């Protein structure tokens, strides 16, 4: 690790994590889906969660903004904090939590409304804009940050669903950005996209890095290698290995990690 990875900034070790999971267990009925996972997530890096299907990575991701709440049989144990506050505390307002921890889904899912309304929806329900001009600015800025402004600025009134798949996904990212989140969760955001659209979304993630803590679940190890600074490898609900992406992909410490990323999984 020491010789292969890029130098570790001494600041890295003392800075506080944006989100921290401690000994998190998730059960679906009797199924123990996530087993005692502890993971720190920092503001200025992209963390990729990789692992075979059913390894618990998506489940873990959805715990971070309590999207699992709607699943009746789902039970979450352990402690997840956002800026030190337990997000499963009954006093935490889940609506505010989800505004702070945004989410982008596997399939691009723009609302069947205009591009403008797609972006404006979040700020509207959270009352982030006082007047129309503020809202216009939020929409423009969000689309700019998502690298979509030049492509759609002349047709903000046309339906978001009329965009191409890649544009739709970037629209969804812009929509998440519009509520000014601190963390963005992405659940396989490129699995429904062609390689060019994928590359554009990855370029976008790369540009957003630093402004938001980004946690991305991906089936593509290459994608994890391309866009993340930290990689966590999940297997059967366990967190097998977590470290610098370069280290994981050049010199993994665990045998299971190596077998998985090299395609030797038995």
């Amino acid at each position, binding site marked *: 690790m020491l010789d292969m990875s890029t130098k570790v900034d001494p600041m890295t070790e003392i800075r506080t994590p944006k989100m921290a999971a401690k000994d998190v267990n998730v059960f679906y009925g009797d199924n123990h889906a996530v087993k005692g996972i502890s993971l720190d997530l920092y503001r200025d890096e992209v963390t990729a969660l990789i692992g075979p299907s059913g390894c618990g990575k998506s489940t873990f991701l959805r715990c971070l903004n309590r999207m699992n709440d709607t699943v*009746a049989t789902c039970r979450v144990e352990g402690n997840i904090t956002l800026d030190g506050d337990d997000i499963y505390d009954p006093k935490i307002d889940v609506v505010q939590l989800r505004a702070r921890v945004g989410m982008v889904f596997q399939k691009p899912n723009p609302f069947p409304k205009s591009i403008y309304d797609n972006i404006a929806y979040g700020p509207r329900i959270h009352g982030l804009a006082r007047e129309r001009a503020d809202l216009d600015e939020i929409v423009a800025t969000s689309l700019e940050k998502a690298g979509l402004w030049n492509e759609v600025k002349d047709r903000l009134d046309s339906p978001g669903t009329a965009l191409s798949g890649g544009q739709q996904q970037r629209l969804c990212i812009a*929509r*998440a950005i519009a509520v000014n989140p601190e963390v963005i969760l992405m659940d396989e955001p490129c699995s429904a996209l062609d390689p060019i659209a994928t590359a554009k979304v990855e370029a976008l993630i790369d540009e957003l890095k630093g402004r938001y803590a980004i946690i991305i679940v991906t089936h593509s190890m290459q994608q994890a290698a391309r866009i993340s600074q930290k990689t966590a490898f999940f297997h059967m609900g366990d967190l097998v290995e977590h470290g610098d992406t370069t280290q994981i992909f050049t010199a993994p410490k665990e045998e299971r990690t190596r077998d998985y990323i090299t395609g030797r999984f038995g």
Partner: protein
Amino acid sequence: MSNTRDFEPTDWKSPEMQARTRKRYRRDRTFRAMGFSAVILAGLFLVLLIGRIFQDGAMGFMQTSIDLDVTFSEELLGDPRAMDAEAFEEQVRQANMSRLLDAALTAQFPEVTSRRDRRALIRIISGGAREQLRNMVLETPAIVGTTKTVRLLAADDIDQLRKGKIDANEPEANRKVKDQELGWYNKLVEEDRVSLNFHTRFFTSGDSRDPELAGIWGATVGSAITLVVTLLIAFPVGVLTAIYLEEFAPQNRLTDIIEININNLAAVPSIVFGLLGLAVFLGVMHLPRSAPLVGGLTLALMTLPTIIIAARASIKAVPPSIRDAARGLGASPMQVVFHHVVPLAMPGILTGTIIGMAQALGETAPLLMIGMVAFIVDIPGGFTDAATALPVQIFLWADSPERAFVEKTSAAIMVLLTFLIAMNGLAIWLRQKFERQW
């Protein structure tokens, strides 16, 4: 000897293979032919039904009239110039208009003298003619003292004779129109005083014992008020139920039981809802009989399962990804439902509602049970007025002995079918309009 052997390349051109292919093709063709025949058969039935109704009902929109020279005698009606308006009106209302008719007919047929014959003669004109004359005088008092050719409705038997429904060649004993009347009719025809005209009264008046005076407006208004009640009750209750069951209800036994029972209710015969309405709304709540309010409530009960099932289906059809997206942005459960799910499900919900309404519009049995089957001449003006509904009106007319009600029945059916087709058309239009947009 080895157990395994290499597969021979399949000989796709062997006779057996070709026979198989031919057989497969034959089966395909037979199945398609059967399906096509089924469609043709169904189409034939439909054409037969519609054709029959049309054949019977087309003439129901027409009515025979007889032109008579009526002298509005000053002696009978009073002089509008000599007296004030109220007194004149009073006198006109009291006047026996039959005397005007009698005089006109006597002028037309001077040879008819006997009291009995003259009574028979006046019966070739509809009983409504007196009302018609009275209204003419009240509208234009200046008419008094003049002689005018007035187009008066013929009695139903004469109307049937004119339309060829009564055969003049049959022996007199088997015929409703006797030889004597036939003679008068023929004389009128020769003088070109008999005509067949479009019958607006059919669309503007209420029920009547006389077919030529009966109309469907009363029943139409009754149906409309009833449906308004049904819609106001069934739509909100149905949609809210569907939303709750789909989006909020916990998955447990109670929910399951409710779901099963809603589905079962959709299959309950409508007469049962009528009995329920009778027992609850009339028996327990003592609401007025024959009122559209009660009819609407009863039909709402009947329509609810249809609306709930349709609404649930279209709510379920909204992709979960939309809910995820909204929830992921921090929308509360209610915001998710009312900002996203319901608007997207609305076309489906509306379609289901309209179809439920159409079903309610065509329903007779429950209305019979709560007394909306009475003979009602007046046009209903409110939710608690006695009223009847279109399908009940059809039922009533179909039951009437007069020959002329047959065509009125069919004409009313045509009007009802037009409403139903229009409602279904609206449903289709709504669905397509909203589905095309996104």
